C-alpha cells in the first residue's frame, strides 16, 4: 500500500522576475512523477528553507538568474543545516558562471544545471542520488 513520491521545492530566490525556466523544470519533474511545490518569485533564503521544512521535501531546486548565487546559496545551505535539513539535495539552475561551479559544489550543492540542460538529466540526477542513499 505504501506509495512514496519524491517531493521537490522549486523556488526563485533573489530579485529577478523571470520564472520561465523554473516553470519548465517544475513541469518536467511532475512529468517524471514527482510532486513539485512551486513557490514563485522573490523568495528569501528564510522563506525557502521554511517551505522546505513544512513540505518535507527531498530536493530543493533554486533558479538564480540575478548573479547573486554566491550570496544566496551559502545562506540557504546554512539555514538548512540549522533546521536539521542538511540531507535535502540542493540543485541550482539559471545563469551560473563556470568558474563558480566548483565553489558551489564544494559548499554542498548537489548539482548545477545551466541553460540548455536536458531536463531528463536533472530527473536522472535526482533519482540516482536519492536512490543511492537507500
Amino acid at each position, binding site marked *: *500500500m505504501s*506509495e512514496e513520491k519524491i517531493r521537490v521545492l522549486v523556488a526563485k530566490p533573489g530579485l529577478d522576475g523571470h520564472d520561465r525556466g523554473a516553470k519548465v523544470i517544475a513541469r518536467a519533474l511532475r512529468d517524471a512523477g514527482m510532486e513539485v511545490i512551486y513557490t514563485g518569485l522573490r523568495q528569501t533564503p528564510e522563506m525557502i528553507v521554511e517551505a522546505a521544512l513544512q513540505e518535507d521535501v527531498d530536493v530543493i531546486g533554486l533558479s538564480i538568474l540575478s548573479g547573486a548565487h554566491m550570496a544566496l546559496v551559502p545562506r540557504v545551505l546554512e539555514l538548512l543545516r540549522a533546521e536539521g535539513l542538511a540531507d535535502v539535495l540542493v540543485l541550482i539552475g539559471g545563469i551560473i558562471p563556470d568558474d563558480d561551479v566548483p565553489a558551489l559544489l564544494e559548499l554542498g550543492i548537489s548539482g548545477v544545471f545551466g541553460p540548455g540542460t536536458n531536463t531528463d538529466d536533472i530527473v536522472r540526477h535526482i533519482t540516482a542520488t536519492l536512490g543511492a542513499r537507500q
Partner: protein
Amino acid sequence: MSRIETLVNGVLDGDRRALARLITRIENRAPDAPAALAALFPHTGRAYIVGITGAPGTGKSTVVNALARTLRAQERTVGIVAVDPTSPFSGGAVLGDRIRMTDLAGDRGVFIRSMANRGSLGGLAAATGDVVRALDAAGFDVVLIETVGAGQSEVDIARTAYTTIVVDAPGLGDDVQAIKAGILEIADILVVNKADRPGAENTVRALRATLELGHRLRSAGHHGPLLDQDDAPPEPALDLWNVPILKTVATERSGLDELAGAIERHRAYLSESGLYEERARQRVQAELATRLREELLARLLDERSPAAVAGVIERILARQLDPGSAVRELLNGT
C-alpha cells in the same frame, strides 16, 4: 524509543519538522502511520476545521492567505492544507498554492502543507482527513483546507470541515454555473471574491436567487450517504442557517473581518442548534464506511487469487457472467 514514537512526541511538542515528516508518512501510507495516528487521536478534536472550495480562478488560495492573516491578528494559530490535482498520466503534480501565501512566511503560528490528491476524486486526497488530524494534534487552533479547483461534484470537503466556504468570482459564467453547481448546496458561507471587478453585484444576485430556489430548510442529513443505522437518532435537527453571501477583495484583505465573523457565527450556530454533534456523528459514520470499504476490499483481494479475479473479468467480457453475479461469486469464494 522507536522512530515513530519520536515523531509523535515531536508533533505533540510542536516540533515542526516532526510534524512535516509525520505528514509525509501519512500521505505515503507508511506501515507505521496507523500507529502514529492512533497515538495522536486522543489529542485531536480541538481545532476548528474550515473548508474553502470553489472553481479554479476564483482566488481560493488568496482568500486562504488573507483569512489566515486575519485569524493570526486574532492570535489564533493556523494550519493550512492546500490540495492540488495529481497528473493522471505521470502520477506527479505541481502544487502552486504557496505562491499566493508568501505573506504568511516567517510566521511560526502558521504551518502550510501542499498535498497532491494522488488520484482521489471529490476534491481532497484520501489522506487529507488524517493530515488534518495531525495538525489538530499539533495544537493549531484553526485548520483551513483548500480543495482542488472544484466544480460540481467535489463535495468531500463538507464531510471533513465544520464550516464550508464556497468561493465564487465575477465573470465565470455566473447564472448558468450557479444553478448547475451542486457545490452550492454544501456552502455554509458564500464568498464573492474579486468583488471590485465589474459584475460582482450580478454574481451576488445570481447566487442569492439560486439559494432561494434551493430552499434552505435542509435537514442535517444532507452531508452524504451514511451507514444505515438501526437505532436511528430521533428527529434530525432542521438546518435553519441562513447562508450569508459576503464580498471580498482578498488581495487587499477587504471583507476578511466579515468572513472571520461569519465563521464564528456559524460555529456558534452549529453548537447551539445541536448540529455540531450531529454532524460529528455523521462524519464518523461516513469515515467508518469509507475505511471499512477500503479495508474489506483489500482483504478480499488478498484472499482471492489474482487468477480468480482475472478469470471473472474474462467471463464478464465474454458475456458469460454479469458484473453483479460476479461480485457475489467473488464474495462467496466460489
